[in-house]
């Protein structure tokens, strides 16, 4: 970031960059690859032409799927018809106000007319447009623009954009974590450069990527993962520089008990661990398609079709060769995995992590109780759950167990506003819920006394409130 402000190179779109396409409020994350067809909002195009342009440029899609940077102000040429009605007392819905038929519109499209021109045609052929109020005319144009405009803006990915994209496109993949809730998590967990943060998530890597962005490559992140391997499709979409990956570590959650008990062996390759690891590797392979799917189904289908061609005769020989190479590769991979495990274990062993972020589809309570042990005292933690009940259980358990203060169970409420002259109001639709958070701070456990005695010592007003009953 230590640029002189005049250097544009880091603001230009490069080949292989991860970018986000935008039209209206719709986003899609893709990688810039030569001659690769991209489908976005029912239109296909190639991103080759975008290379070299500045980020945030808006492109027009012309025939053949070619992108052309949109000329500034061209879209602003609003209709010069300043004629408008004052109310709708004489507007009758007879279904005949639009003189163009659906076929006519299709023909216009096929002729390669620009979105703006089609809209102009629609306005000219609408018998009621002139009688509509100025506001209704505005609304009509806006609606048509959304439908016919064939532009796409290419953005540099960021936590803001990706969190909005995931919430809009695939909320199921991120446990319905809304972007404002993610924002709360990053702040409540005091995520910042130089700390050592534990992340357990099943949100496609979105939460992990957001944590990494906030740390800017300084410090370390240990991803605790369930199953065969960490899912990081969302992390890739951030397009982090390579040195960011040096801060990223991973540790399988199935080894947590062994690590805590001191029985985790990361130095020798004993056969049992080996078989376990090859199991993991096998699972890993199975996991791959799933991970790719997260990037978008279109990409996946593209890849399978390109891999299908090739001579039939050589296939067998190549298969053998590939098998051997694969076995060799697997060995190297295993060794790498073991090294990584040892490195992550070393980071965890000090039990001095600076923060804990949990956002998963698993039951929150065991995850939190298990991972909290790795935090230093006086460090924040935050648990996300789509459901409040699991967090109530966490809260109760933590109160019994001790070792935390300042516990809060919260959620946020997000309301968007339309702000226009004489038409300002909250948007009609709002999100029903963005999940719940439990946050708090760790403190030193009082080892000299049992948990019961500790409870009794707590400040009286707090205790009263806790057991307070209503009704």
């Amino acid at each position, binding site marked *: 970031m230590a640029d002189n402000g005049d250097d544009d190179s880091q603001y230009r779109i490069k080949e292989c960059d991860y970018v986000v396409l935008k039209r209206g409020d719709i986003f899609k994350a893709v990688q810039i690859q030569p001659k690769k067809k991209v489908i976005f909002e029912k239109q296909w195009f190639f991103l080759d032409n975008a290379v070299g342009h500045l980020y945030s440029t808006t492109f027009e899609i012309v025939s053949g799927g070619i992108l052309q940077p949109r000329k500034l102000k061209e879209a602003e040429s609003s209709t010069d018809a300043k004629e408008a009605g004052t109310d709708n007392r004489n507007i009758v819905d007879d279904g005949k106000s639009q003189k163009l038929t659906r076929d006519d519109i299709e023909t216009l499209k096929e002729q390669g007319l620009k979105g703006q021109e089609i809209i102009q045609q629609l306005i000219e052929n609408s018998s009621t447009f002139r009688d509509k109020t100025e506001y209704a005319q505005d609304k009509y144009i806006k609606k048509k623009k959304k439908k016919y405009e064939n532009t796409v803006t290419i953005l540099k990915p960021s936590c803001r954009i990706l969190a909005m994209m995931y919430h809009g496109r695939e909320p199921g993949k991120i446990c319905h974590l809304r972007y404002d809730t993610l*924002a709360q998590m990053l702040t409540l967990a005091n995520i910042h450069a130089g700390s050592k943060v534990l992340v357990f998530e099943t949100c496609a890597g979105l939460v992990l990527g957001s944590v990494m962005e906030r740390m800017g490559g300084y410090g370390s992140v240990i991803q605790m993962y369930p199953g065969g391997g960490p899912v990081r499709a969302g992390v890739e979409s951030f397009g982090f520089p390579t040195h960011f990956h040096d801060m990223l570590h991973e540790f399988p959650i199935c080894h947590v008990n062994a690590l805590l008990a001191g029985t985790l062996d990361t130095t020798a390759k004993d056969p049992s661990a080996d078989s376990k690891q090859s199991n993991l590797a096998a699972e890993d392979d199975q996991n791959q398609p799933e991970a790719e799917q997260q990037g978008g189904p279109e990409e996946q289908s593209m890849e399978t079709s390109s891999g299908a061609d090739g001579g039939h005769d050589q296939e067998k020989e190549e298969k053998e060769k590939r098998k051997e190479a694969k076995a060799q590769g697997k060995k190297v991979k295993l060794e790498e995995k073991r090294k990584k495990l040892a490195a992550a274990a070393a980071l965890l062993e000090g039990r001095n992590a600076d923060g804990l972020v949990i956002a998963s589809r698993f039951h929150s309570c065991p995850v939190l109780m298990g991972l909290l042990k790795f935090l230093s005292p*006086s460090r924040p933690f935050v648990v996300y759950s789509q459901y409040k009940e699991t967090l109530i259980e966490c809260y109760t358990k933590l109160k019994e167990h001790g070792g935390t203060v300042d516990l809060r*169970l919260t959620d946020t409420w997000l309301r968007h506003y339309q702000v226009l002259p004489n038409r300002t109001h909250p948007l009609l639709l709002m999100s029903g819920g963005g999940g719940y958070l439990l946050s708090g701070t760790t403190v030193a456990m009082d080892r000299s006394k049992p948990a019961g005695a500790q409870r009794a010592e707590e400040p009286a007003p707090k205790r009263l*409130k806790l057991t307070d009953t209503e009704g």
Partner: protein
Amino acid sequence: MSFVEYSDFIQDGDVAIVYLGHESMMPVKVQQGAQTQTRYGVIRHSTDLIGQRYGSKVTCSKGGWVHVLHPTPELWTVTLPHRTQILYTTDIATITMMLELKPGSIVCESGTGSGSLSHAILRTIAPTGHLHTVEFHQQRAEKAAEEFKEHRVGHLVTVRNQDVCKDGFGVTGVADAVFLDIPSPWEAVRHAKTAMKKQGGRVCSFSPCIEQVQRTCEALADQGFEEISTVEVLLRVHDVRTVSLPLPDFGPDPSALTQPDAAEKTPPTSAPNQACIAMKTTTPPREIPGHTGYLTFATKPRT
């Protein structure tokens, strides 16, 4: 201690947060030989704090005890001395994400006020970013600068005592993000544009009243800002508690009486108060902040 870096042990000169109980905390400037009074008794800094680990339990003179916490911008926000109305963590979190702040970001802010948001910005942009903050009230500007130094983040921030609506932010073409929390943000929009990088960036304005939002949005559109969007974020706190709901007494059940055994086992109806069902649930606090301010965001395009 620093607001941008954790340390394990409490040292002379640190700011520590004393946690007294639910929603009750106070900041303490740790000084050799100093004492702090709490409702649980006296804390003697030299013996009770200095050299202790952050997060440990400190026994006070009256036998009560407290926890001593490492400062964070979030804890500071709920304990800081108010010189103005402040921004709270819910809005701060939204602002931080929507302004795309991260290590290395150059940020402009006005007014500095009590420094609640400033500390959160500094935490996020450290160690390579910088905050240019403008406060037209001289005393408040001086106090903020003093606090930043005390909190060991002085190297990351420049405080300017000037009127942002008249004189701008004092920098040109450097900011990735601008935040405005002033009574007439529309008068500062063009200064925000000037302060920002030519490659563009994000801007946010916080206003309690919709009329202010209206004027700000117009000014932003006039200055060529894009993606103008206004949101409101509200925090809902859920108090966890056990409630017990009494069961009503329907009187003797004749169908149950047909079996003499069952009749014996049924508790006598003379003690209906005992029949209760206890359950864990949450209740909302009786009163919550229903409005803090509207947050208007926009993108400055490349110029």
